[in-house]
């Protein structure tokens, strides 16, 4: 028998158990594209399984809220509650994404890139 691939069964643990019944994140600073960074020095003991999984996910590098939700297979709003807790406990910090208005246009990018390549 092949070992079953690791996968969480989605319907087993319901979201209210994950958030302990809460629906409002402790802080309202999360967006779908907010980037989340884990602090490596924080202990993971005592965290709920979902929070632990979230931390392990984020320890690999910055992730957006939407990506975390996708990987954990949890609703985004539930992930936000968990993120709020983890930011409060100092496990995570957030960083706002680059606003789209400040992103340069592709054409300029291409030109500058070409220029850079020529120089560097």
């Amino acid at each position, binding site marked *: 028998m*092949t070992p*079953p*691939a*690791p*996968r*969480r*069964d*989605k*319907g*087993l*643990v*319901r*979201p*209210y*158990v994950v958030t*302990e*019944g809460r*629906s*409002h*994140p402790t802080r309202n600073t999360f*967006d*779908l*594209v907010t*980037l989340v*960074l884990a602090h490596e020095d924080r202990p993971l003991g005592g965290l709920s*399984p979902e929070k632990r*999984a979230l931390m*392990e*996910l984020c320890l*690999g*590098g*910055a992730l*957006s809220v*939407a*990506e975390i*939700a*996708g*990987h*954990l*297979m949890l*609703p*985004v*709003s539930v992930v*936000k509650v968990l993120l709020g807790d983890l930011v409060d406990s100092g496990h995570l*910090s957030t*960083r706002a*994404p*680059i606003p*789209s208005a*400040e*992103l*340069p246009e*592709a054409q300029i990018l*291409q030109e*500058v*890139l070409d*220029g*850079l390549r020529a*120089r*560097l």
Partner: protein
Amino acid sequence: MSDHISQVVIWCLVVAVAAVAVLLTRQRSITAGLRRRVAQLEESVQARDEEIGHLVGVRLPAVADAVSQEVPLPGPLDARLAGTVFAQRLQDVMDLFAQAVEKAQSRADQSAKAALKASMRALQGLAHEQQLAISEMQERHDNPDVLRDLLEIDHANAQFGRRAQAIAVLCGSWPGRQRVASPLTDVVRGATSRIRDYRRVRVHSGQNELAVVSRVVEPVVLAVAELLDNAARHSQPNTTVEVSLQPVHNGACVVIDDAGVGMDGREIQEAVAMLSGRRAVDVSRLGDPPQFGYPVIGVLAARYGFSVSVDTRSPYGGVRAVLFLPSALLTQLELDGPGTTPLRERGRGEEPRHTPTVPAPRGPSRSRTRHPERTHAPQEPPPAYGAGADRPAEDTGTPHTTPRATPRPPVAPHSTDTAHPGDTPTAHPGETPHGADTPQAPGAPHVTGSTAGGLPKRRRRQPAPGQQRHSRPAAPMPPADIPPERSAEETARRMGAFARGTRTGRTGEHRFPPLPGDRDAAGGPTGAHAPTPAEDEGNPHA
């Protein structure tokens, strides 16, 4: 002569009188015997009448009642009738009656069970459907207020589903849903999801990686849920229910302690009898209000081979329930590490088709899609990115992908080793336990399976041990024709510097000489190349 005549007459008379006297005496004794006999017979008839009255009035009702509770049946009223044919016939009547009652009872029970089972299956199906709908709504709505309401509905729905499921199981149905093998912690928390007072349950799981085989996940969830529900309902609302998971030599135990009222000896005896699963359960005799918990657990335990005992006293004063899972029902899950999040291209209800094709249990490593248009599809993030930031957040999927990438790559797990012509030999830190990373074009999003909605998932790179972490807002931006000797991190750093440079340029605050070629570090079209890599990388932490 006359003397002779009179003498003869006298003798005749004497003989006659004597004969009459003898006859009379005999007659008398015969009459007395007959009287006695008649009295005896009358008495006997009366006794039989009474016996029959007793049969109808006492013994047969007792037989009818005895089906619901075990009581000694009353015997015949008159001991003198014992051993007679009459008593034998009465016993035959009793037996026939008992059989008839039993047959009627079992028939009624069966039809009740069938009716209950069918209706509970229907309710179960509805609860499941509703759960799916609620899950979908939870994914779709981002408003905490809506989520709160949805969580409440979800909770009520889960309890409702459990009730229906328990009754269906009691009526001989299967527990229902097929689950994948799940960690014991998740099984217990899944059970917690289904009871009213889920907030009072504390699960101490420790760090065991025990998992329950898929066949018994749902039965164990149901059994633990019933135990937890009992524990929570029979204890004060301000106490907690402590659950600990303990690996033992022959399997694993789920120990549930409550601080409630406990059970007395008779209750424990009854509970043990029900939990053994040997006693046939009759749905019509579960008491009022019906007590489903222990009979359901007993049925499940007997059917699936685990055992439950409740005859110990908890150190908190209440009941300690121990559910023992033998090793045959346990398995070992290879837990997903940080980099190996479950990659599973599964739409709902489609996974059976794919499960056999995913043999790599922990190496869902670099499963990139094989088709170039797919690898490029998520490579146009700037519009999606900007749009995602502008729009009020309502897509639940990954914002970095376009809907064109939705065709689910069915062969994704197998394409892990496809070499890519444009790949750079840059250093790729081992991100999977195998370390079998294929080199990759810098900045190319790594599609690792897809979400439930069919969108591809991007995999992050992990930094090399020596390198610092990077946040990658700009990572997807570089085009694919980068010279191969430049690492992704370096490119990204340059692009970050460039982005800041253009921003500075547009705001018109030229803190650096704007002349191109003036200084290598700060000049040029980049405007501000001043931040050192260290600053750049420190930035994400800001």
